[in-house]
């Protein structure tokens, strides 16, 4: 059924269809309407689950961990400082191999205090052993709620998934979304089965400590299985297309990249505008491409190398900055290309911080810079803050 839904409402529909058995909920803007929508579903009987009103994000994820250790399918959601508040629990969830699905409404980090969208929250926690995926629109958000469980719970993976949904740009923006039926969802996503849980006939110890003698094995297999998620994502998306008739392109979403002279890499809802501008440039005979990263963990190494191998210049537009370094996505993309033996002039565009609009003009400017780099003009490797006027850089 087609509905006009916000990103949060759409995601909640996806969660409902996934039939989680335990939901732990704590509000934070702009995530709040997800847990509100789920509470309404529990109230009206359309969702049967244990709904825990927890007192913090730390408890939200910890309770999800406890529930997952009983073999229950679990869901929680957070944003921004809330994600950081539960940060230590992220490694318990991933190290314990609990396939929790968590929605993160991407939002800026304090200070200055700011409730609007950017991606510093999730990107600063890229190294915590979770699968990270970024939605571009509300339909993808809903569909990812379902696909995330299928990937997370696959025994070859058995890892938590953080589904990132841009704060406000998606979470509070209404658009038309196809909501699958429960029957379709059930055909796609079977109940969760695992051996990684308490067992009353053959009791287990879970989440124990492992010293230097054994620790490396756990880390190694965690890494291996996170890498293995790439193949599982492809399988899951193939099944998804079969059941729902909507196809997704795997680790990355390449647009006009095959013959592109220069490609702008981005993630999340900013990709739509980047494609608009690429279309403009194509109409002018300029070969621009857009590569939207969907999964940032596992790192889409092969897909990036494939899509960017023939581009003469590469830019990364992201709503994030690792202070004193570069944008996190840029650093990851460069490392990925370097490992594939690809060296190209590049630039890093930092925009949309704290809910700032990424304007069409700014995206045009970014492409113009890439066009110049592709033509051998300008310095490579610069970190450009969109919207900081010339001359402002040095003022105190």
């Amino acid at each position: 059924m087609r509905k006009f839904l916000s990103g949060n409402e759409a995601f909640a529909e996806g969660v409902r269809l996934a039939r989680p058995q335990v939901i732990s909920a704590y509000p934070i803007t702009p995530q709040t309407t997800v847990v509100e929508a789920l509470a309404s579903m529990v109230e009206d009987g359309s969702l049967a689950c244990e709904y825990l009103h927890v007192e913090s994000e730390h408890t939200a994820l910890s309770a999800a961990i406890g529930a997952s250790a009983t073999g229950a399918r679990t869901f929680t959601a957070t944003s921004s400082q809330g994600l950081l508040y539960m940060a230590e629990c992220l490694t318990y969830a991933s190290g314990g191999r609990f396939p929790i699905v968590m929605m993160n409404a991407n939002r800026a980090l304090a200070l200055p205090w700011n409730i609007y969208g950017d991606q510093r929250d999730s990107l600063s926690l890229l190294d915590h052993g979770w699968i990270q995926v970024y939605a571009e629109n509300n339909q993808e958000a809903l569909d990812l709620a379902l696909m995330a469980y299928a990937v997370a719970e696959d025994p070859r993976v058995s890892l938590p998934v953080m589904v990132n949904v841009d704060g406000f740009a998606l979470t509070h923006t209404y658009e038309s979304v196809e909501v699958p039926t429960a029957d379709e969802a059930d055909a796609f996503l079977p109940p969760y089965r695992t051996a990684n849980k308490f067992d009353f006939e053959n009791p287990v110890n879970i989440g124990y400590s492992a010293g230097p003698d054994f620790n490396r094995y756990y880390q190694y297999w965690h890494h291996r299985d996170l890498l293995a998620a790439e193949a599982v994502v492809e399988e899951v998306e193939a099944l998804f297309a079969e059941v729902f008739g909507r196809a997704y392109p795997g680790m990355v979403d390449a647009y006009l990249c095959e013959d592109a002279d220069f490609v702008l890499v981005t993630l999340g809802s900013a990709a739509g505008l980047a494609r608009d501008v690429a279309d403009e440039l194509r109409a002018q005979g300029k070969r621009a491409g857009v590569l939207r990263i969907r999964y940032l963990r596992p790192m889409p190494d092969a897909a990036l190398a494939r899509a960017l191998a023939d581009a003469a210049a590469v830019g990364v537009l992201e709503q994030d900055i690792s202070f004193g370094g570069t944008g996190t996505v840029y650093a990851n993309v460069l490392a990925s290309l370097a490992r594939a033996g690809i060296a190209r002039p590049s630039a890093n565009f930092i925009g949309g911080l704290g809910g700032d609009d990424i304007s069409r003009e700014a995206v045009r400017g970014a492409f113009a810079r890439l066009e110049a780099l592709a033509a051998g003009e300008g310095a490579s490797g610069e970190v450009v803050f969109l919207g900081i006027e010339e001359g402002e850089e040095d003022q105190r």
Partner: protein
Amino acid sequence: MLEFIWHARGGQGAFTAARCLGAAAALSAGAYALAFPTFGPERRGAPMRAFTKIDTAPIGDRSAVHRAAFVIYLDETLVEDGWEDELAPGGLMLLNTKRALDDPRILGIDADGISAAVLGRPIPNTVFLGAIPALTAAVTIEDIHAGICATMPSKLHEKNLRIVDAAFAEVASREIAATRDLVAAEQAATDVTAVLSEKDAMFSLAAEMLVEGEGRDFDVRDC
């Protein structure tokens, strides 16, 4: 792309109207639409804005609207100097007012009066939903009905449908409607003929939704 900027005070239902319009376009008129509010620490009573974007193709640009074909003021007191900067060329301001205005860029509607006549108190947001199909071909009054039914709680349907019908009749009777239609249509990239063919099917879909899809007004509350 046809864009709308809604001005109101928190709690006046501007975002509900923006959403109804988006639902009308996306669920009934077969177009693509986005609807979103501005958010801030302000609470009930503070000035706020909401946006609706309608297009025949998927909408890539999710950023706020700075210049629109329609700029709608639910509250007359919010109009400030420089308001015309928000109007796209040929655009129109829709203003909730009892006054007669002679500025051709402004269409005054007594939205408080029209809504009070039905509801017994002035809740002007849906009056403007009725005005819009009289001014652009992008959505019809039937689309607006479907949008309201898909977005509002069912107990509010009957009265709001009456309001939009009254508003539609009122605005359609004005001379301005005929002239604006051309200008606004120019603004709209919407292919009306393509849209019309899908309408009937979409309408019945939307009508189904009023049973379970009871929307609610988020406005500025969620901070």
